[in-house]
Structure formats: structure tokens, C-alpha cells
């Protein structure tokens, strides 16, 4: 179980990077970035997970409810989700403008931050 849990994290991260490197479309690239991003969210929650623990919500619970999963890691993951949404929205806005200017979204055709703009 431990191996599976952490392997999925590594897999998502690397597969997201793979998608970005091979991407031929900026919008596709942005979504691949969000896949790599979710790897880190997942890692945070896996570190905070406690087997047979209950959620850190204490409504209608006895006074000593037993093991509880890590609320810190959930808070950090929450922050990261919001952050990822913000970055994705900005990158999509940039992509829309790039398409308007150049008519393409292919990074291969966009390789022109020309050293010489003469």
C-alpha cells in the first residue's frame, strides 16, 4: 500500500512533466501542469493520512475519538489547490493572447524570443 501510494505520486509528477515537454499546444501544456501539481497535493495528504483515522472534524464525536488524520497537511494541500487554480487561469489568459497574436499555440512555432529582433 505504501509503495502504491507513493508510486502514484511519482507517476503523476513525471507524467505531467512528460506531457508538458512533449506538448504541442499551450492549453494542453497548462492542463498537464495541473496534473503534476496534483501530485504534490496528493503527496501532502498521503503524508498526513492516518490509517483508520477519522477526519479532523469534531462535530458529534465522543470526547476521545481515537486517531485523527493530519489537519496541517490538509490545510497545506488546500492552499496548494487554490494556488494551482490561480496559476492555471493566468497561464490560460496568456495562451489566449499568444494565440491572438500569432495564430498558433504550438511551442515549436513559438520558439522565437529572438535573440535578434532586427
Amino acid at each position, binding site marked *: 500500500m505504501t509503495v502504491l501510494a507513493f508510486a502514484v505520486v511519482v507517476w503523476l*509528477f513525471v507524467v505531467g512533466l512528460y506531457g508538458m515537454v512533449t506538448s504541442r499546444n499551450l492549453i494542453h501544456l497548462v492542463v498537464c501542469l495541473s496534473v503534476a501539481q496534483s501530485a*504534490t497535493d496528493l503527496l501532502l495528504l498521503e503524508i498526513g493520512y492516518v490509517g483508520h483515522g477519522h477526519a479532523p472534524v469534531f462535530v458529534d464525536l465522543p470526547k476521545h475519538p481515537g486517531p485523527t488524520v493530519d489537519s496541517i497537511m490538509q490545510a497545506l494541500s488546500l*492552499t496548494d489547490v487554490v*494556488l494551482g487554480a490561480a*496559476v492555471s487561469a493566468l497561464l490560460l489568459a496568456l495562451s489566449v493572447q499568444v494565440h491572438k497574436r*500569432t495564430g498558433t499555440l504550438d511551442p515549436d512555432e513559438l520558439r*522565437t524570443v*529572438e535573440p535578434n*529582433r*532586427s
Partner: protein
Amino acid sequence: MIPAVAHPAPGTVLAPLAVAVPLAAAAVLAGANQRIPALWRDLLGSAAAATATVLAGVVLSQAAHRRVVYWFGGWRPVHGTVIGVDYAVDPMGGALAVLAGVLALAALVYSRRFFGETGGRYPALVLVFTAASIDFAWTGDLFNMFVAFELVAVTGFILTGFYAEEEAPLQGAINFAVLNTVGGLVVLTGVALLYGHTGTLNLAQMGQTLAGHRPGGLVVVAFALLASGFLVKAGSVPWHFWLPDAYGTAPAPASILIAGVTSELGLFGLARTWETVFSGAVAGSAEQRIRLVLGALGVLTALVGTAMALAEDHPRRLLAFVVIAHLGVYLLGFSLLRTAALGGVALLAAGDGFVKGALFLAVGIIRRHRRATGARALRGEGPAITIAAGVIVLGVLCLSDLPPFSSSVGKDLLVATAGSAGPLVEAVIAVTVVGSGAAILASAVQVWQGHAVDNPSPSEDAAETAAGWGNVTLLAPPVVLLAAALGLGLVPHLADHAASAAASFADRPGYHAAVYGAARRAVARPGTGGGGVEPLVIDGAEAAASVLAAAALVSRRRIAPVLGRGTGWLRDLHRGHLGDQLTWAVLGMAAMAAASGLALR
């Protein structure tokens, strides 16, 4: 175990305000947007940046005597477990915050009324950038550092893409955003690993937990991840590719923030985590080896940056490569892992930060003027141009580490503490200084003669000329920034101050004690030798060599083919292809992990 939600000590209240004031002003500026008259927007933005700078300055002066520790929400540690987030400001972090504040103020004054069409959003973003930089420099919490890292990146790439009418700024912004976001993910992974291992996010408690234990695989990998993530932001090879794309296309006032603050923040992040978290776990021989890894990276970065600066025609991309070359020198200095060298690096970085800001703005003035008058050549074009040209020449001298500029003191301190590595450090600095100085001078001459290729885009032009070029608000920022670099160099006993600041920065037990509330005075100041006639001669020779090399570069027609052949492949690597940049970044991270593994285990 009910913790005391204690009231903070009087006087420390300024630390959170230095962040709260720019954030609140940003909220007002963007929230009200066009409903505030332009003049009031400018005033509010500048006033907020000035207030933040002054507050940071006061906190710095407090921190010079004793670390300023501030617990947000009043959550002090309970029985050794940190439950809140703290600021732990030492002189180094305090100075970095002041630098960020000054540069933000310069950017806001310089860009007065340029960006009217976007209302209050542009100054709001500059202020948010400032607050995030201050938080990054002061925080004592690793996750909080990550959040600030991301916020600096987000505001940075928005400002980069400001001229959305043009293709190049958009691509610069995208490369900036993607590379820095990947860097952020890597940092966050490192944070997660360290939390899983130590059970805390607080830098001091983390360092305390790791100290004295030989680092295992997890700690090594966490170090490699944090280091590569921070070096993406700093712009070290092979993570530097986004940097010229971004600086080369951002509006001049945004460039000075990115060039003068972002690189420094990246290096600061590396130094902070090394000194407070990892250094306690590293034995002598491992320290030797990690020194080699970081030093090699620094030398490589300095050389690549210098070579590319020499081969570059576009004035602002050229400045970006100069920034990279200097970052290489700082990294080399940091890799010595000696406190006095760290002080030298700090002085170099502070002085250069001001100067690079002045240079970006001066180049901006000249470009704008040339567009406004349509003149090809600039000779005899009035006082504004003369002042801008003077700023460039003086700036190059300052980057040559000539006395009395602060960078000269920093360099001497660095070389003096390098020990057996002294000649190597001296040589790398000489190559960097001569090469980048020559490149800037040659480019300035070409701009002056009207041969430069850096034609501002029409949109940029419309925005920037609207304010009129002969304006005081335009000329004052570069002049003041240059004066700041000069003034810093004239502070008496500057080297001693820097060395003691570095000693306090690297004092891991002292940091821990301060965070945990144990009273402890600042560590004794180590004496520094240095000075004397010999460094002066070398510095003079370097400046002279820069001028000579610049003269050679100007008669470029003869040497350009040679230069072109030598650096063609290098230039090919810097074409701005996002996939290439990502590939290099991942390769760098893997290599960093391998090297750290070999060094630290």
C-alpha cells in the same frame, strides 16, 4: 497544556505592518481601480511602498542588535512544538526586505502614470510583489516561504506579460510562469518530505531535529529539491533559460524588480534553508563536497552568463545575462560556506541590486527618448540623455567592483575569506566583471550611435512616452538607485557590519534560541582584514580591461564572426523553446539530486 496566547513585545509590532500596509494598499488600489484619480493612485502606491521600506528599515535596525521574532496570532511554541508561523528577522533578511522596498518604490515612481489604462491594478501588483518578497525574507516557516515564493513568481510573470499586444512579452511571461511553477512544485515536494520526516514546518525546529544525525536519503533528496527549486528562481544554470526571455521583454520598471529582487530571493532561500535546516546535519567532509557542487554550479553560471552577455545584441537581454553572470559569482561565494564570504555576497548582491535597477531604468530612458524624437543617434540630445548615459557609465564602473561602491567592499571580503580558493574566486570575478562590463559599455555605445536592435514596441512606446521623458520622476529613480549603491559603499565599517550580519545569519543555534524565546545576544563580530593597496590595483585593472574590451567590441565588425562561431551553439540553446527549457530543468534537478547524494552521504 494550554499555550499562552501571549502578547507580543512592544516594538515588534512593526514587522507584520511592513507586510500589511502594502497588501492593504494593493487591495484598495485594485478594488477601486479607475474610481480613484490617477494622481491619487500614484501617491497611494508610492506612499505604501515608502512606508513598507521605512518599516523594514526600522525592523532591520532592531534586528542588528537582536533577532526580531514575531508570532502571528500570538501562537508561541508549546513544549517545544511550534504551532504557529513566525517571522525571525536577522540583519540579512532585514536588508533584503529594505532592498525590495527601495526597488519597488523606484519602480512605482518611475512608472508614474504609464499604466493608466490598467488603473490601480499595476501598482497593486507591484505592492503585492513587495509584500511577498518581505515575507519570504523574514518568515521562519518553510511552507510560508513556499507560499511567498509562489506569490513572487505570480506577480512577477504578470508584470512581465504586461505588454500583451506583443508576442515576445507573452512568451517571456509563459516561460517565466511555467519554469517557476515547476520550481515551486519541487520546493513543495521538498517541504512535504521534510515535514514527513521531522513533523514540523518551522525552520528552527526542523534544524534542531535534523542536527547531529547523518542525513538519510530523504534529507538529501529534500535538500536537492529545495536547492533546485530556489535556484530556478535565482536563475542558476541550467535553470536560467526563462530569465532573459522574461527580463528582455518586461516593462523597464518590472525588470528592475525581477532583476534586483527575484534572483536575490532565490539565493536567499537556498542560503536560509542551508544554514538553518541542513547545516547541523552535515559533517566536515560532506561539507567539503557540497562546497564543490555548489561552487562548480556557480562558476558554470558565471561563465555562461558572461559569454552570452558578450554575444547578445539586445540591450535588455544582455543585462539579463549580466544578472545571470553575477548570480554565478554570488553562488560561488556562497559555496565557500564561510560566514564572512556570505557577508561579502550580501554586499555584492545589495550593491548590484541597486545598480542593475539603475541600469535597466537608464536604458529604458534612452530607448524611450530615441522613439520620442525619432533620432537615430543620441549625441547632443539634451540633459536627460546625458544623465542617463552617465548613469550607465557609472553603473558599469560600480559593477566592476571599484571602490568606493559597496560591491568593492563585498568583493574584497569574499576574496579575503576564500582561502586557498582565493585565486579561483578572484579569476572568476575578474572574467565576469570584465566581460559583463565590456558588454554593457559596448551596447550603450551602440545605442548611443543608434545602431542597437532594441526597438521598443509601438504599444510600449505609446504607454511610456505618454508621461513625457524629461520628467523628474523618470530621472530621479535611476540616479537615486545609483547614489544608494554609492552611499552604501561609504558606510563606515561596512565589511564588519556585513560579516557580523552573516555570522548571525549562519548561527543556527542562535536562530533556534531566538525562535524559542531564549534571550541571546548577537554573536561576536569576527574581525575582517582586507583593504590595502593590492585589491585596489586589481579593481582598477579590471575596470580598465572592461573599457578596452568594450572598445574592441564596438569595432565589432571584425570580431563578430569569431564571437559568433564561438557562442553559436550556446545561443542556440537560448532560443526560448519551452520544452527545451523544461527538459534542462528536469535534467538539472536529477543531476542535483545525484550530486547531493554523492556529496552529503
